[in-house]
């Protein structure tokens, strides 16, 4: 279906309009990286903006027929953002900061205690082993929960109802905790 874009509009300078939108993109990206991508909080958004803008520009110049501008822009902006994020990340010489460290006073504020690191690594190993033992859908639901997705997001991504996602997450977490809990003396 052709785009529902209007034929004419109030007089305004398209350059200024676009500058405004791109400026807003930078602000949006900064907020979203902070909110949704804790491990990428150290990335300079300015490094991404120009890459994304150039990619959108190239795509628009190559794509003469745009049936659905909204979908087109969404796809180009999304894939360009992901690609740019990965490129910028790959260029970084220093390792990324983990979200937990960034939430505090900065990475330099807390040197990891070797004992604590070893304990966390062991916990992580046990957690992954326990997860691997869960039935497929429970494992997926719990893993998505642990990655920070809501049950609605999990449902959307996996093609489930929200109720199914909630149920699988709840039961899966119960199962996981049981498997992780220290066995009492005499337990089989």
């Amino acid at each position, binding site marked *: 279906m052709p785009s529902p874009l209007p*034929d004419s509009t109030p007089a305004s*300078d398209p350059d200024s309009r676009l*500058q405004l939108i791109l400026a807003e993109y930078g602000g949006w990206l900064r907020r979203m990286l902070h909110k949704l991508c804790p491990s990428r909080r150290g990335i300079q958004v300015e490094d991404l903006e*120009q890459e994304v*803008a150039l990619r959108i520009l190239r795509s628009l110049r190559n794509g003469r027929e745009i049936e659905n501008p909204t979908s087109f822009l969404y796809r180009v902006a999304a894939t360009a953002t992901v690609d740019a994020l990965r490129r910028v990340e790959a260029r970084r010489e220093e390792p990324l900061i983990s979200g937990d460290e960034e939430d505090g006073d900065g990475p330099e504020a807390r040197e990891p205690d070797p004992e604590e690191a070893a304990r966390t690594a062991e916990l992580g190993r046990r957690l992954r082993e326990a997860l691997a033992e869960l039935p497929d859908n429970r494992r997926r639901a719990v893993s998505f929960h642990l990655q920070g*997705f809501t049950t609605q997001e999990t449902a959307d991504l996996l093609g489930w109802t929200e109720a199914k996602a909630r149920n699988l997450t709840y039961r899966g977490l119960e199962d996981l905790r049981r498997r992780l809990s220290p066995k009492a003396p005499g337990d089989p």
Partner: protein
Amino acid sequence: MNDDDLKAVYRRGSHPLDRTDCPAADQLFAFATGAVGAPEREHLADHVAGCGACAEEVRLVRALKPWSEDMAERLGAAPRRPRSLWSRRTSFGLALAAALSLAVVGGQLLTRAHRAPVPGVPGVRGPALEDSASPPSDAVLRQPPERFVWPSQPGATGYRLRLFDEEASQLWESPMVEEPGTDLPVAERSDLRPGASYFWVVETEGQVRRRQLGPWWFRLEGR
């Protein structure tokens, strides 16, 4: 172990340094938007479930949807080129491409501090000056222009003109000039085709309110 502890332990170390096994951006986009079939969805879900970096990217992609809708709506509301030049469908892309190219070639994306503010939108520059340019915007010319003239900018120490075709490919860039006008060399004039449309912008140097002027469009009469 409470829920937050579980999440922290799970996510620690789930951000791979090597992303070669991660799905490409377009696959991730398809997954995030539900545009994949069941077998591939499960395969991608298993990857995202164990990869903190991809999980973050899926969240970012989903969050981009309302932003893209807003962006498309606002750009769709931008002034159109004459209907005789482009179809309605292509004009969106070309108008955006043209405008985007201005932002990119001008290097303005990263220098917002130089722009004058738009009321209510801090850090964003104001509307363009549309008058006093020659050829004026939307001019239909019998011959390629011999000279471009634009509004003088108080405080400007230099200007540079860039000429583009309608697909935002740059055709010519003037040397830096002190006066608000420059001649189009004969060689470049002869490259302009009858019936085609072009636009031009001017970048300014110095302590000026506007860092970029235009775009101004013109079309050459067809044969």
